[in-house]
Each structure stands twice: as structure tokens, then as C-alpha cells.
């Protein structure tokens, strides 16, 4: 078990390395930070002073090492666009994105898994066909369009829910949460649905196809041949086997939520890391882009690791057995 964790962590290191290399390369070669920071008029002396200050005259690997050392401590320099420390900006926005992402993920799983199981078992009922049509549309709708349609219906026409911002938030030290105020919760509804819908349809289709595969296996056939009741077959044998691969893929999909948060935050002007990232891309604000990239890589790598561990815990075949019989 321990060696399993260690080997997985070792596998994650090259990913982080490559990502930090790319981030750093962006810093070093894209645009001219000196020009950006000093503006239009500057003297040669000012330029040289800044170059020395930023350490831009040192060799590549030294700069890279400094970059990584700084990154590990959370130090990414100043945003070109806002002239504030990047770390501060991200910390400010992180709670918004995280609360949104978690709510969306929760919704997607809570509704997607049961729908997938139902359509996998009762393949031809009209409810299944309805769910399937719904899921097909869900996969064909881009996230931003869902957001717009929801805004149109619930904000413009019905006026029930707000269409931008986060509502009132309560602060707990460094964290700001929207869960504890009524307006915070109302503001969370539309973005969470928008973000979660795509994931929901993906999860539903995944669970369904896995369920159908499992119901075709020999061991399910044998279970039927033994006269086991349908309930035991569907929710015992089939479901357990379905969830094993679903865990992996669903876990990886949840990484997609973080990516699509960018779009959702843009549509709803949700003050999270995604909105920050888009604004940075538009303004060529490299420090923020680089920091976001590294943070995201870390999150994904961690998600992968956790999913691997879960897989290991659930599937007995992965635990090399104590003794084999003949």
C-alpha cells in the first residue's frame, strides 16, 4: 500500500516538472516583462536596474530554480495588469471558485449517478428515453449557452434569481463563504447548475454504459441462473462493479469542472479564479497565467492520486493477495 502511494507520487513529479517548465518558459520568453512593468518611457539605467532586480540577467537554470523555489512558497510576483501580488489575488478568489465547483460536482454526482443507474437497468422505459434525450442535448450545449439560457429564463423573464456576482458573503478569517447568506445561496444556484449540467450528463452516460456492460457479463448471467432476485443483481452485483471504473473517470471529470468554471464565471461575473484567468489571458498577464497553471496542475495531480487510492481501496484485485490456492 505504501509503495503504491510512493510510486504514484513519483509519477506525478514529472507532470509538475513539465508544467513548471512551461510556466517558467512563459515568464522568460513571452513578452517583455521589463517593458510592461516600466511602461513607455524609461531610461537604459532604469531598465538595467530592473533587470538585475528581477534576476533576468542570470542563466536559465538559475532563474528556473528561483522560480520553482518561489512557486513552492506561493510567491509568483506581481500581476502585470493589477500590480498586486499574484498570490494575494488568487487567495482572494479561490473560495468563490471552490464553493462553486464543489456545489456543481455534488449536484452532478447526486443526480447523474442515479439517473445513469436507472437508464442502465430499465433501458426502454419512456423515462429512460427522456433522460437520454436530455443527456444528448446536455452534451451538445456549450456551458456558456446554458448559462445564458438560464439567465434569460430565471433572471430576465422571471426575475427570481440574480444573474451576476456572488451575493453577500460571510468571512471566516481568510475564507469568504456564500453558503451562509440567503442572497449568497440564491446567487449560487444558476452558476452551479450551469457548471454541473455538463458533468451531470457525462456522468449519467458513463454510469449507464458501464451498467449495461456489467449486466451483460457472465457473472450476472450466473447470478440470474442461481435465481437471485433482481434487486440483489441490480443493486448488489451490478452496481458495485459499475462504480469501480466510474470512480476513476468521474474523478477525472471533476477536473473538468475546474476548467469549465472559467466559462461559467465569465457568464455570471462570478469573482473566482476562472474569471481572473480569463482577464489575464486577454491582457497577457503572464504571472497570473503561470500561477494559475501551476495551481491547476497541482490540483489535477492530487485528484489523480486520490482517485487512484480510491480505486485501490475498492477493487480487491489490485491488492496483491496473501496466498493463492490451487
Amino acid at each position, binding site marked *: 500500500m505504501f509503495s503504491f502511494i510512493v510510486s504514484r507520487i513519483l509519477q506525478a513529479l514529472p507532470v509538475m516538472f513539465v508544467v513548471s517548465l512551461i510556466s517558467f518558459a512563459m515568464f522568460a520568453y513571452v513578452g517583455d516583462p521589463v517593458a510592461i512593468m516600466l511602461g513607455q518611457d524609461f531610461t537604459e539605467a532604469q531598465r538595467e536596474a530592473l533587470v538585475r532586480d528581477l534576476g533576468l540577467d542570470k542563466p536559465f537554470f538559475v532563474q528556473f530554480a528561483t522560480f520553482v523555489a518561489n512557486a513552492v512558497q506561493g510567491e509568483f510576483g506581481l500581476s502585470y495588469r493589477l500590480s498586486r501580488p499574484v498570490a494575494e489575488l488568487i487567495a482572494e478568489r479561490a473560495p468563490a471558485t471552490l464553493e462553486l465547483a464543489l456545489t456543481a460536482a455534488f449536484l452532478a454526482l447526486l443526480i447523474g449517478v442515479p439517473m445513469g443507474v436507472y437508464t442502465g437497468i430499465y433501458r426502454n422505459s419512456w423515462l429512460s428515453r427522456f433522460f437520454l434525450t436530455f443527456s444528448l442535448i446536455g452534451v451538445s450545449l456549450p456551458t456558456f449557452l446554458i448559462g445564458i439560457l438560464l439567465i*434569460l429564463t430565471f433572471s430576465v423573464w422571471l426575475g427570481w434569481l440574480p444573474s451576476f456576482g456572488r451575493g453577500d458573503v460571510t468571512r471566516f478569517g481568510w475564507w469568504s463563504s456564500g453558503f451562509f447568506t440567503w442572497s449568497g445561496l440564491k446567487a449560487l444556484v444558476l452558476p452551479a447548475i450551469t457548471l454541473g449540467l455538463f458533468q451531470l450528463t457525462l456522468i449519467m452516460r458513463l454510469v449507464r454504459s458501464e451498467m449495461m456492460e456489467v449486466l451483460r457479463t457472465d457473472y450476472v448471467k450466473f447470478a440470474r441462473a442461481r435465481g437471485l432476485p433482481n434487486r440483489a443483481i441490480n443493486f448488489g452485483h451490478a452496481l458495485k462493479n459499475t462504480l469501480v471504473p466510474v470512480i476513476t473517470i468521474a474523478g477525472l471529470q471533476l477536473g473538468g469542472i475546474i476548467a469549465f468554471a472559467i466559462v461559467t464565471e465569465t457568464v455570471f461575473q462570478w469573482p473566482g479564479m476562472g474569471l481572473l484567468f480569463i482577464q489575464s489571458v486577454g491582457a*497577457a498577464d503572464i504571472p497570473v497565467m503561470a500561477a494559475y497553471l501551476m495551481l491547476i496542475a497541482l490540483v489535477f495531480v492530487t485528484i489523480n492520486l486520490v482517485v487512484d487510492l480510491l480505486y485501490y481501496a475498492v477493487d480487491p484485485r489490485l491488492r496483491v493477495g496473501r496466498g493463492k490456492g490451487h
Partner: protein
Amino acid sequence: MKAFFDSDIWWSFTRSPVTVISAIVAFICIAGAVLAPVLAPHNPFDLASLQLMDAFKPPVWQAEGDRAYPLGTDDQGRDMLSAIMYGARVSLLVGFAAVVFSTLVGVTVGLLAGYLGGKVDALLMRIADIQLTFPSILVALLIDGVVRAALPRETHSEVALFVVIFAIGISNWPQFARTVRGSTLVERNKEYVQAARVIGLSPLRIMRSHVLPNVMSPVLVIATLNLGFAILAEATLSFLGVGVPPTQPSLGTLIRIGNDFLFSGEWWITIFPGVALIVMVLSVNLLGDWLRDALNPRLR
């Protein structure tokens, strides 16, 4: 040709009304988009023909609608129907080109990795795995952002279209590579490949003429499904403002422009391009679904 119409595939195609309808719809969309310059009632980019007086006209079935502009006009008097047709053209172009790009890169890498094996395989798959850790939209955003920062503004506008195609294409190749690699590994051990090796054909020739035709079937399915995703990806990037240049608006760009008018009541400026997008992607996805089921040997 006759063999095609006799085959199982055609039979299952004609049996499913949904698939036939979506094929027809997809065809209409593609025809309308490709032939936009010929079919569109107006040219929304010809600044001379725009009448600001006609701005903000609602669709023809509403009170102040005008039959000349069946789907209404936007804030500059551009006809929505024509704008949508031209926009669909750009969306389709980018989506299609991106998929072709992904396929070329992915299939090549997959063939090389599967056939040559060893270190080449390990390296290529490692790269694919690292890229697969990230959702493709993020990769596309990143590439687009980096290029945008690296190029001066004017150059960027000129090549923006290619950058978008490149970004979306690059973000999707690992899927193809992995599938093709898997199939290649299977085919490599089959007798016809070994026979070709014994005859002395070069690896390149074997890969191209013998292995490739046999691994194309799943590639076709992935490519069709990817077309839907590519179109959506382009729409998303354009909506976010980092996609195609404003001079060649796609459906995503149109939606973004229209978004500003949502609250003032001119909903049609954003909704109609949205509907067009949904219809196009939906029909492509339905076709892809049907193709996947039809080509899946286990379901036959």
C-alpha cells in the same frame, strides 16, 4: 457503391428515424454554411449595405418585425439570418479543420508509438498522458493565450484563425493517439503484418498501407464525436473573447455580442445564434452516436 447500400450499416441507418433526421439537418446546416455567400439574403459584412435605421428589429413574427429580416437585426442593422449563416461557416470551418489536425497528429503518433514500441512508445505516451491530465479546453486556452501574448497585436489578428484551429487541434490529439496505438499494438502481432515484415517492406510502408486501414474504424467514430466538441470549443473560446478575430465572427462571437443586449429585451440577437449552434452540434453528435453503435462489433 451498391455494396454500401446493401450493408448492415445502411440498414441500421435507415431504420433509425432520429439518425436520418439528424443527417438531413446536418446536411442542411453544412450546405447553408458553405454556401452562405450565395444563399444568404444579405451580406452582414458589407458595411455599405447596413442601415442603422433597421437596427434592433425583432423577428418577423413579432409586432415590429420586417419580412426582409426574418430573424431580426442586431445593434448595427445586420440581418441575423445572414450573420448566422456566415457565422456557422466560420464555426464549421474551424471545427472541421481542428478535427482534421487532431486526427493527423494523433493517428501518426499512435501508429509510431504502437508499431515502433519501446522507448519511442513510452515517451510519446507519457506526453499524451501528461496532456490528458488537463481538460482540453484548458490546453486550448493556454495555447491561445501564450500565442496572443507572444505576437504583436496586428500579426495576431491575421493569424488568429489558424491559432484557434491549432489550439483546439492540439488539445485533442491524445485521444486519437491512444486509440490508434492500442489498435496498432493488436494488429502488429497479426500474421499479415509479420508476413509483410518477412517480405521486407519498410516499416513506414507497412504502417501506412497495411495497419492504417485496419485501425481507421474507431478513428472515424472518435473524429465524428470530436467534431461536436471542436465546434463547441471554438464557440466557447470565441465567447470568452479569445477565439476567432472579430472580423470573422463565428456563432460564438455572435452570442457574445448578443449577450450584452439580453437585459434590454433584444433576446433574439443572442438566442438565434445559440439555437443554430445547438442544432448543428446536436445533429453531429447524433450522427456520431449512431456511427459508434453501428460500427461496434459487439452490439451487432
